[in-house]
């Protein structure tokens, strides 16, 4: 039974090298990677690369409010006199954090439930898990997230919790589909015949074969989660001021359009670039692994 796994792993390593080569040959994916790396770099080193790091927190200077883009403030200043460029850099932090936290909370339970339900397809375990996901998937995620946020005090943390609560079923469903077809595969049955433990079969035999799909979905989902997070902030149920959240910045800036367009436009572009980056990478993965169902 180790035979199948070792060759699998070996093939995987080989495949990874080849995959990277193929991935790097696709200019669109590389562009996506470039966006994501740039955004992550700016987010991580925001205190060092932004011209006015103090502007991201409790700072006001009404004397310099509403200035158009200039050399001093490349993206202009908002109505509080804060440098928008600096706030966009810090805003990347919250967007990425939203994506990373939500996905890290969601993927493990989602995947485990999906594996289990798929493996026990047709039993009551399958029924319980999958009907529960049906309930969560019965309403658009944004609406349920909004509803949950509305009973909690608005904050970044609660927004993350609400989105996480909505998001795991997508992974369960994805992995369920994969694992319920994988369990009839030869290598899984071989492992079963040789008496491998259930956890071995689930996590060592089936899971590795779902990884590429999960990975692809995650990179696409980074974008979606960031979008949903920005939508929550847009209506005021997400990050609270003075946290420089991109969605909040767009919503607040919208009041000052069209004269002070820079307050809205730059954060909006920042959201688009971030989401675009993850999307392009996800597409690259999808092409790479030749996946359809993600």
């Amino acid at each position: 039974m180790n035979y199948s796994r070792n060759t699998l792993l070996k093939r995987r390593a080989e495949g990874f090298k080849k995959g990277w080569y193929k991935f790097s040959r696709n200019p669109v994916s590389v562009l996506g990677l470039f966006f994501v790396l740039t955004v992550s770099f700016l987010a991580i080193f925001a205190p060092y690369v932004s011209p006015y790091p103090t502007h991201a927190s409790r700072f006001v200077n009404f004397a310099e409010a509403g200035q158009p883009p200039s050399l001093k403030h490349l993206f202009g200043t908002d109505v509080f006199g804060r440098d928008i460029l600096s706030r966009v850099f810090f805003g990347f932090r919250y967007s990425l954090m939203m994506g990373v936290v939500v996905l890290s909370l969601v993927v493990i339970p989602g995947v485990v439930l999906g594996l289990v339900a798929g493996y026990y397809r047709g039993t009551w375990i399958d029924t319980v898990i999958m009907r529960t996901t049906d309930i969560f998937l019965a309403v658009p995620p944004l609406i349920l997230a909004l509803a949950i946020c509305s009973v909690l005090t608005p904050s970044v943390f609660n927004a993350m919790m609400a989105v996480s609560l909505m998001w795991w079923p997508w992974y369960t469903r994805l992995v369920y589909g994969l694992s319920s077809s994988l369990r009839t595969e030869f290598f899984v049955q071989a492992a079963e015949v040789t008496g491998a433990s259930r956890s071995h079969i689930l996590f060592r035999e089936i899971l590795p074969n779902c990884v590429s799909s999960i990975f692809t979905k995650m990179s696409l989902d980074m974008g979606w989660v960031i979008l949903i997070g920005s939508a929550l902030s847009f209506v005021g149920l997400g990050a609270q001021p003075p946290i420089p959240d991109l969605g909040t910045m767009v919503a607040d800036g919208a009041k000052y359009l069209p004269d002070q367009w820079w307050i809205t436009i730059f954060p909006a572009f920042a959201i688009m670039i971030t989401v675009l980056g993850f999307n392009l990478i996800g597409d690259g993965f999808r092409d790479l692994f030749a996946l359809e169902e993600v």
Partner: protein
Amino acid sequence: MKGKIVVVVGLVILSIGLVAWGGGPLRATFAWPTYIDPAVGSDFSSSSSLVNLYDSLVYPDAKGDPLPHVATAWETSDDTLIWTFHLRDDVTFHDGTPLTAEDVKYSMDRLTTIGEGYAFLFLGRLASTDVIDDYTVQFNLAQPFGPFLSTLYRLYILNKDVVEANIETPGPYGDKGDYGKGYLLVNDAGSGPYVLKEFRLEEELVMTKNPNYWIPIDVDAPDEVRFIGTTEAATVRTMMSRKELEIADQWQSQEALVALDAMEGVDIAAFSPGTAFYLMMNTRIPPTDDIHFRKAMAWATDYATVVEYIFPGAFQACGPIPQNIPGADPTVFQYYRDLDKAREELALSKYSADEYEIEFHWIAEVPDEEKVALSFMSNMADIGINIKVVKVPWMSVVEEMGAVETSPHIVSIFDSSHYPEAGSLLESRYHSNSAPTWEQNEWLLDTGLDAMLESAINTVDCAERFAKYAGLQHMITALCPTIFLFEQVEKHAYQSAYIDWPTAAGEVNPVMGYNLAARFIKVD
């Protein structure tokens, strides 16, 4: 059946009105919700609507003093407990039936039973209402009440028959069912200068001129009044630039006002409506239960920046009562920014600066409040106090202020007096009865203060009453329960090129809502 007749009559009246008169439409933007039920509504948009749809016994003049309106004359008993009003006999409701003393009593009973809206003005003070004859009504007070006449602006007279015909049972009010609340939510039962034509929740309120109004309305007064339920800056701008909007709401940000002002034919009407902006501190939860802590914050606040940059044209408040309200005392103590004094007070406090994170809630519907919040936050950072700024929608603020444990450390709110006298605000802001309402976050619950307040309000002699008001103002300021930030200058962008708005010309009515009484506005 009767409802149908009303509608038909209304339609006939309406069509005649359209043919006969020629004032253009008056459209104004508003913040929702708007409640046109006289026993429910009490905020700005509701008051402005009630003023147009209903009549009251007396009407405020430009200084806020009572003029005869539906009541032609009145007298009081010697002990000032019995007030008798003589009504006009030519006032008819929108369905054509005459307004009688029975309707006045019904309106008062309904208001005090439901207990919402402006009911608090009368609750506990009014013992009963009696109908003497068709056109004479008598109020029996439980205790003397100095400003009683001024509070009667807020008794909007309902058509009893119409309400009774539309009661839904069961409801919370026993045999009165829902007391017509369901009906009056989207219908009017008044006699006012305007008739409700359409009320689309969260969208707009349309009223047309009442052609049978008992006071002749100027020909140029708007034939149709539309209150549109949005304060969205982009929408307001677009409508204003297309001349689809005559008067904009007062919630527009400074930046938006600048842009509106730049439009051709649009001017900004700025006036002092007797409204102040308060940072209300909860004196029942740590650390704002400590007077030194509160004083430290009052000393650290940068009043100048707020009035200079955030609300240009406003001025720092002097105590709890806006200066143009009768009874305001200009001599009360005013804080100014002094960090040394702030630190001294902080040293006296039993709490250290960073022991707690102070929650500062601001009203989501008023964008400029965020600027105040952030400015306050950075001010407090100077003395080491951590502020957490939270944006909260109006309805939620109202709800959380209903209980002391859910009331935040600080809420920033605009408040104005309900009748033009210092006593109104003193009571609604600091009396124990108002502690669970949105008008008080302080939770003073000070029985001594309550007694003094009641005694002041019960004083019928004006000078004596005002002296008591002054004492109260000093006393409250000394407790430092509130940071009296500034007195508002209300700013409305309006189409100066084609509307004639007395308020913009300086005739500012200090009673909330009366500046939008459409019958005094002329639209070409």
